[in-house]
């Protein structure tokens, strides 16, 4: 298979009940692609990620990961307990020990080469996210999976973080699968966007998704902002404006 991960008909129940979190979701990600999942709170974004990683049982459907696929994962809201003394350097050696050279390389890669000796609890939010990304880059992943990696960052921090992710993709050739709330930035940084609300509402290029009625129904005023972004871009290219308004590429809409 060419896809890194391919899933068909994923259905997930809330643990210990029959409430459906996700229903009949199809998904695939190709090498070097940046795919972002957007959706309101409780729309099953993190559940989708965790199902693709094999951390939660499936009620139906199947997930195929390419043989030998190496994944670098940054979970949502990682909190490191203040009771554990832990330097950044030591953290990178969990659970697999890495050499000092490798640790220095990934920290340089994510622009935080100076924090190696610092305690995790002394890092700023932005530095901590970069350390998590550095850790995910150990062992040369084919795919980076980032669950709301910019949570708790301010606007300049968010923009800088997405720039970094694009840069990492360019340098390492890793594909990136992200969950995000930052609609505006996502729309600029992704190859493909999946809009999720228990099922796939719409998916496609950022341009396509931001003009889809399902997306605009879900995100309301915030969606207008991302649409404006594209309309602005398209002032110089008038051919496609009409195409945006009726979603003919609709995959999985219901």
């Amino acid at each position, binding site marked *: 298979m060419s896809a890194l991960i391919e899933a068909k008909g994923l259905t997930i129940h809330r643990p210990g009940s029959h409430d459906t979190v996700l229903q009949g979701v199809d998904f695939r990600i190709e090498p070097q692609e940046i795919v972002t999942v957007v959706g309101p709170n409780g729309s099953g974004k993190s559940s989708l990620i965790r199902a693709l990683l094999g951390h939660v049982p499936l009620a139906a459907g199947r997930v195929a990961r390419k043989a030998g696929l190496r994944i670098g994962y940054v*979970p*949502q809201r990682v909190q490191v307990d203040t009771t*554990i*003394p832990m330097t950044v350097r030591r953290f990178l050696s969990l*659970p697999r020990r890495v050499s000092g050279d490798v640790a220095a390389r990934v920290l340089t890669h994510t622009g935080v080469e100076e924090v190696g000796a610092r305690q995790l609890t002394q890092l700023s939010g932005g530095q901590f996210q970069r350390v998590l990304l550095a850790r995910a880059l150990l062992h040369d992943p084919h795919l980076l999976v980032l669950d709301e990696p910019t949570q708790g960052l301010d606007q300049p921090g968010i923009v800088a973080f997405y720039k970094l992710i694009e840069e990492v993709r360019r340098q390492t050739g890793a594909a990136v699968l992200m969950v995000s709330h930052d609609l505006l930035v996502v729309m600029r940084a992704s190859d493909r966007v999946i809009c999720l609300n228990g099922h796939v509402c719409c998916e496609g290029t950022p341009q396509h998704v931001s003009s889809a009625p399902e997306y605009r129904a879900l995100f309301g005023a915030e969606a207008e902002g991302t649409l404006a972004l594209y309309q602005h871009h398209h002032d110089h290219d008038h051919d496609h404006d009409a195409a945006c308004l009726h979603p003919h590429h609709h995959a999985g809409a219901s």
Partner: protein
Amino acid sequence: MLDDFFIRAVLAGLGVAAVAGPLGSFVVWRRMAYFGDSTAHAAILGVAVSLAFNASIYAGTLLVALAMALAVSVLATRGQAMDTVLGVLSHSALAVGLVAISFVPQARSDLSAYLFGDILAVGRTDLALIWAGAAGVLALLAWRWQRLLTASVNEELAMAAGIDPRVERMILSLALAVVVALSIRVVGSLLISAMLIVPAAAARGLSRTPERMVGNATLIASFAVLAGLSASLRLDTPAGPSIVTAAALIFAVSQAFRRG
């Protein structure tokens, strides 16, 4: 050398200190203090059971402590508030244990030996069991070290690395039950969790990595054993509480040297 009761007491105390450092660090990191308490309190029930059936105290406390650890794990997954579950189990275990032990005539007289330990009465067999148990627990923790640590830092990160956090939790529960069983003669049921928590808490502020914290906690626990036993000998104070008092003093001093 082992003929001297004081030497035996020192060696028994150091055996407990050797495991209290690493295991106590996990208890602090994973906020298992109350969990340690309930397992330790259950040991009194274990003593009552052992005496009633004429069995080894170590076997009885180990079994009951394991049962307690299992009960906590099961209840915790049922969505009860953890501190409430532990509060109920911890105090119930102690109360039921004290009631049960009152039915065993020979135990009534030296109840305080089980509550606060009787380290000066430790014999050669006790010593052998304590050190064998300590070696077993240390080997277990060393074997699983990287996994236990990763699961304690963050369960999601652990799962992504193919580690099952539930397995690591069970291993710590098992280690805790063994340590409770082997320290009951040394510091007693009420003070076991103090031996786990106080040295590790004192070491926290002085350490920059998990390994240093474990090393410092072990040193502090060992020093507390030596200081407590010497004080007990000179001032004729109870040995177990003297050891814990020494650890508490070190904790107080350590707060002045915190490194954040």
